C-alpha cells in the first residue's frame, strides 16, 4: 500500500476511479504500463500535475503491446489524445477505460465512430469506409470487392440517403450488432 501512496495521491486515485471504469489497483497497473513505455520520461511519482504534464509521443503509445498489432492504433491514439499527438496519463486512462469490459455500448460506439472516421468530418463517408476496409483486410481485398462492401455497408446503415453514415446512424446499427461489445475490448 505504501507504494500506492507515492505514485498517486488519494485524491487523484479517487478522481480517476470516479471518472473511469478502473479500480485503484488497475490504475496502478496502467501506470506501470505507461511507465514501461518510457521509464526516462515517466516518473514513479505522479502526484501534482504530472498526470497531465508528462507527455509521451504518440509513436511510443502506438508501439505498446496492446496496440502494436492493431491496424487502427494510430487512430486510437489520435482520438484519445484530442488530436494532438502527445499522450498524457489521463488520456491513457481514458483510452483503456473506453476499451474496458465495463464500458457500456454507448461509450464504445462513440469512440469507435471517431476511430473509424479517419478524415474527421464527423461522418463515415465512402473514403472512411474504404480506408477502414483496407486496414481491416490488410490489403487482401481488391478494389471492386471493397467498393461492393462499402456499398452494402452504406445500404445497411443509411437512413437519410446522403451516402454517408452519421453518428446517429452508426449508433443505431452498432447497438444491434451482438459482436461489437466483445470485440471492441482490450484487456489490461
Amino acid at each position, binding site marked *: 500500500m505504501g507504494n500506492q501512496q507515492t505514485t498517486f495521491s488519494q485524491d487523484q486515485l479517487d478522481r480517476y476511479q470516479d471518472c473511469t471504469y478502473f479500480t485503484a489497483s488497475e490504475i496502478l497497473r496502467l501506470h506501470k504500463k505507461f511507465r514501461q513505455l518510457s521509464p526516462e520520461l515517466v516518473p514513479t511519482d505522479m502526484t501534482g500535475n504530472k498526470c497531465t504534464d508528462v507527455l509521451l509521443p504518440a509513436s511510443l503509445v502506438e508501439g505498446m503491446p496492446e496496440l502494436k498489432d492493431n491496424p487502427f492504433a494510430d487512430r486510437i491514439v489520435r482520438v484519445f489524445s484530442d488530436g494532438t499527438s502527445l499522450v498524457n496519463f489521463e488520456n491513457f486512462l481514458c483510452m483503456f477505460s473506453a476499451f474496458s469490459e465495463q464500458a457500456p455500448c454507448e461509450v464504445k460506439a462513440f469512440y469507435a465512430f471517431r476511430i473509424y472516421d479517419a478524415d474527421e468530418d464527423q461522418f463515415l463517408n465512402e473514403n472512411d*469506409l474504404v480506408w477502414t476496409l483496407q486496414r*481491416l483486410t490488410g490489403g487482401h481485398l481488391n478494389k471492386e470487392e471493397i467498393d461492393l462492401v462499402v456499398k*452494402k455497408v452504406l445500404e445497411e446503415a443509411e437512413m*437519410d440517403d446522403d451516402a454517408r453514415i452519421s453518428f446517429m446512424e452508426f449508433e443505431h446499427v452498432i447497438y444491434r450488432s451482438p459482436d461489437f461489445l*466483445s470485440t471492441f475490448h482490450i484487456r489490461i
Partner: protein
Amino acid sequence: MNVYDTELEEHPIVTQQHQNYSTNGELGYQGYTPAAVYQGNNELDRDDDPYQPYPQDALLRNRMPTAREAASGIEEIIMEMPSRTISRGMGGHIGTMVNATLARRSASRYRKRQLVTQGTFDGIERPNDEIQELYEELADEQTGEIDNEELRQFPVSMAVKKQVRSHANENREKKKSRTVGSFKIWRYNMSIKWRHFKQDTKKFAQNFRLWQHDLKQVEGHFGTGVSSYFTFLRGLFLLSIPSFIFNFAFISLPQLLQQPNRTDPNITFTGEELLTGANWLTETIMYYGYYINGTIEAIPGSEYDMPLAYLLATAGYFVLCLILIVRTTASSFRQNYVDGRSDYNNFISKVFCAWDFGITSETAAKLQHKTITTELKEILSEQRRSGESRDFQEKLKFFSLRLLTWTLYLSLTGGCMALVYFVNDFLLDDIKKGLGGIVILEQIALALIVSSINLIMPIIINLLTHLEKYKYPRHEIYIAVFRNYILKMGLIAVICAFWTDDELKSTSNDNNGSATVECWETELGQEIYRLVIIDFLFTIFFATFCAEFLRKLLVLLLDGKEMCRKLDRAEFAIVNSVMDLIYGQTLCWIGVFFCPLLAGIVFIKYFFMFYIKKVSVMQNCRPSRKRWRGGQSQTIFIGLLLLSFLLSAIFLCVVVFREVPSTACGPYRDQDRSYDVVVNLFNSLYATSSGQWFATIMDIIFSVWFLYSVAAGLLVWAVIKSSEAKGYEELVRSLRAQIELQGDDKQLLLKWLQSTVANQNGKPPPTGGAFQGGKENHVIPILHHRDSAKSTPCPSRSASARNSPKHDINAPMTGDVLTYVDPQHVQASHLVGERMMATTSFSNPSQISLRQREHKDPLLHKALANQQRPRSMFVEGVPSSYDTQRRNSFAGASVDLEDLDTETVYEEILSDPNGPSPLLLALSAKVQAEKSQSSEQRPGYGRGGY
C-alpha cells in the same frame, strides 16, 4: 358575399385571386370544412369522415392570424409530419411514457452528437459556464449529485470530467452549508452512504476477477472465441465455490462432528478409491448412505436435524444455482438476441465489429486480416448466390443426404444409449468376469465405456454435420451442438433411469451382493463420481494430451516433409470443449443429492482444468482460421446449461417426491419418501401448542383453492408481462420507424425552405425529384415521402390537410401529381383511396397523371390523408378565404416578413404567366394583412400581434 369576402376585398391581390377563381361566395368556406365538401361531392365518404365542421363562430372570426399564430403554423406542420404522427397510432406511448423516462438520456445523447460534430473537448480548461452546463446535464435534478456511472459514460476528456466532478463537489459543500432539516440531512447522508456502498461492492467484485491475466493472454493469441471457453470455465468455477461452501457447511460439516460407526472398520484407504470412489470412500461423508437419520448433538444443547438439513441444503443449492444461471442467461440473451439482430446488419457487423481489439500477437493479427478478408468474400459471394436457388434435383440430393445423416445419427445415439443400458443391466457381470478380477477396472468399466462414447461420438457427429454441407457455418455449429447435447443427456438419462427404476434397484442390489450396503443412492453417487473423474481424465489425456500435445510433436518431427504438409497443429475445439463442460456440470447437479461433496470435487476439477487447458492452448494450438461468432453461441451454451440444470432439478424432484429411499442407509432410511421429513416437520409443528395458527396457515397454503389462485395469479402476471413485452416491441418498432421518418422529414422541410426562398427571390426552384412542376407550377410536393404515417383522426389533422400547400390551385394541372397509393391499402383506406377517386373524377383526368408508388412500409400510409389536400376543393375552383388565411400562416411562418420586399412579390405575381403561385399569394396577402392591421387596428386583431 359573407363577411369574409368583404374583409378580403381590402386586399387587392387576394381579391383578384378570389375573383378569378371564385364564382360562389358560399363555397368559399365550404372548402373550409372539408366534411361539407365531401358530403357534397362524394357520397362514399359521408359516414366515416373524421373531420368535424368548425363551429360557425370560429368560421366567421374575422381576422388574419397574428404572428404568434403564424409561427405556430410551422409547428403544426412539423407536428403533422409522419415522424410525429406515427406516435399517435401508439396511443401516445411515445409521447408520454418514453419522453418522461428518456428525456435526460436523450439530452446527453444530443450532447454526444454535438461532441461528434465539434470534436471532443480538448485538454484545455473550459469556461465555467460550459462546465456548469455539463454539470446540470449530468446531475440528478433532485439531489444535485452526479452519478459516477454517468460521468464515466460521458465521452469527454479527463480534464473536463475532473472539472465537472470538482464542480459537483463544490455544489455539495454549498448545499451542506445551507440550513436544512435534520431528516433531510440524514436522508441525504444515507443516500451518499448507499451510493458509496454500491461503489465499494462493485469495486470489490471487480477486484475479484479471477485469472484476468490468463484470459488476456489467451485472448491476445487466439481471439475472443477461445477465450470465451475459458470465461465459461471460469464462470462454472466461480459458481461451484459458493455451492461447495453451502453444501459442506450445512451437510458434511455437522456429520463430520459426529461420525457414525462404519459397518466394516477393516477397510483402509489405499489410494485407488480416488479413481473408483468406492471401497473406503463408500462410508464417508462423500455419499448419501453415510448420513444419519437422527439429530446431531455435537454442541451440547443444540439439535441438528440431519434429514431435514440434507434436503433443505440441497434445495438451497439448487435455488442458488438457479438464480445465478437464470440471471446470466437473461443478460446474455438480452445482449445478444433482443438488442442485437445480426442478420439485419450483416455487413456492418463484419466491418465495424470484425477486428478483435484484444489481439496482441502479430501472427494472430495477420491471421485476423485473412479471416476478415475471407469472410467478406464469402458473404459477397453468398449475396450473389442468394438469387439462385437450388433446383429440384439438388434439393432432393440434399434432402436424402440429410435424411441419411439424421438416421445415422439417431441410430448411433440410440445404439450408444442401449449399449450403456445393457452393459449396466446384463453385460457388466460378464465383463467383470472377463477382466479376471482386476477390481478397479471392474468398478470403472461403465464409466470408461460412457467416457469413450463421449470422446468418440462428438467426432463422428461433427463429421456427419460437416457432410451435410449447411449453407452457413453457424448452422453447422448449432446442429452439431444440438446433436452432441442430445447424446450426452441421453447417456446420463439412461444411467439415472437404470438406478432409479424399482426393479433394477433390487437386481442391482442382488448382483452387487455382499460387501457394500444395499444402498442404491450411494451406488448412483459412486457411479456419477466415477463418471466425473474419468471424464476429467479422458479430457486431459485424450483431448488435450493426445490431440494437442502429441500432434504438435508430430508436426515438429515431420516438419517440412512433403507428405505431411497439410498436417498442422490442432485448432482449439471450442464447441466440443464447452459441451464437455456442460456435461460435467450436469453430472454434478444430478449427483449432488447422492454425493454432497461432488460440488467440491468439481471445483477442484475446474481449477486444474483451467490451467491444463490454458497451458495446452498456449503451447500446442494454433489460432483458428475460422472466425468464431462469440456472442450468440455463448448465449446458446448458457441456455443449454440452464436446460441441463432444469432437467437435473426435475430428476431430483422425482427422486425426492416419488422414489422410495433405501431402507438400510441414508438420512431417509425410515421414510417412505425423502419428502416425508418435511411433512413430519409440519406435523410436529402442528402438535406444539403454538402450532395452531401455523396449522391454519399451512392448511390454507396447501388447499386446492390457494394453489389455484396462486397459479392463476402467476398466469395473469405472465400474461401482463408478455403483453408488456409485446408493447415494448411495438414501441421499439415505431421508434425505429420514427427515426427513419425523421430523416425524410428533415429533407422535406429543407426542400420547402429552399423553394420558399427560391420563390421569394424569383428564381426557379431547384429541379429535383421533389419539384415536379418546375417554375410555372410551384408545386411543393409534400408527398415526397417514402412512407406515410399511421395516424388517428384528430382535430389538428384537418388543419394540416388544409395547411399543406401541396398542389397549386392556380396553375393548370400540367405536371404530374405525386400521390402515394399503396395497392394493398386502397381497399382499407377509404380516406385516401376514395378521396383520390373523388379527386381524379372531378378534375380533368387528361391533365393529371397519377403516379402510383408502393410503400416500403404500408404501416404508415394513413398519414397521407393528413397531407393529401382534398383536391375536390380545388376542383370546385374555389380557394376558400380561410384557406388563404391558413396559407398565410404557413407562409408567414416560414418566411421572414421583414426581409420580404413587397414590390418584388407583386411583380413576381403579375409577371407569372400561369398566375400567381399560392405561396406568393399567401405572402403578399400576409404583407397586406400587416399593413391593414397596423393602419386600422380593428378590434379582435389585437392579442399577440407584432
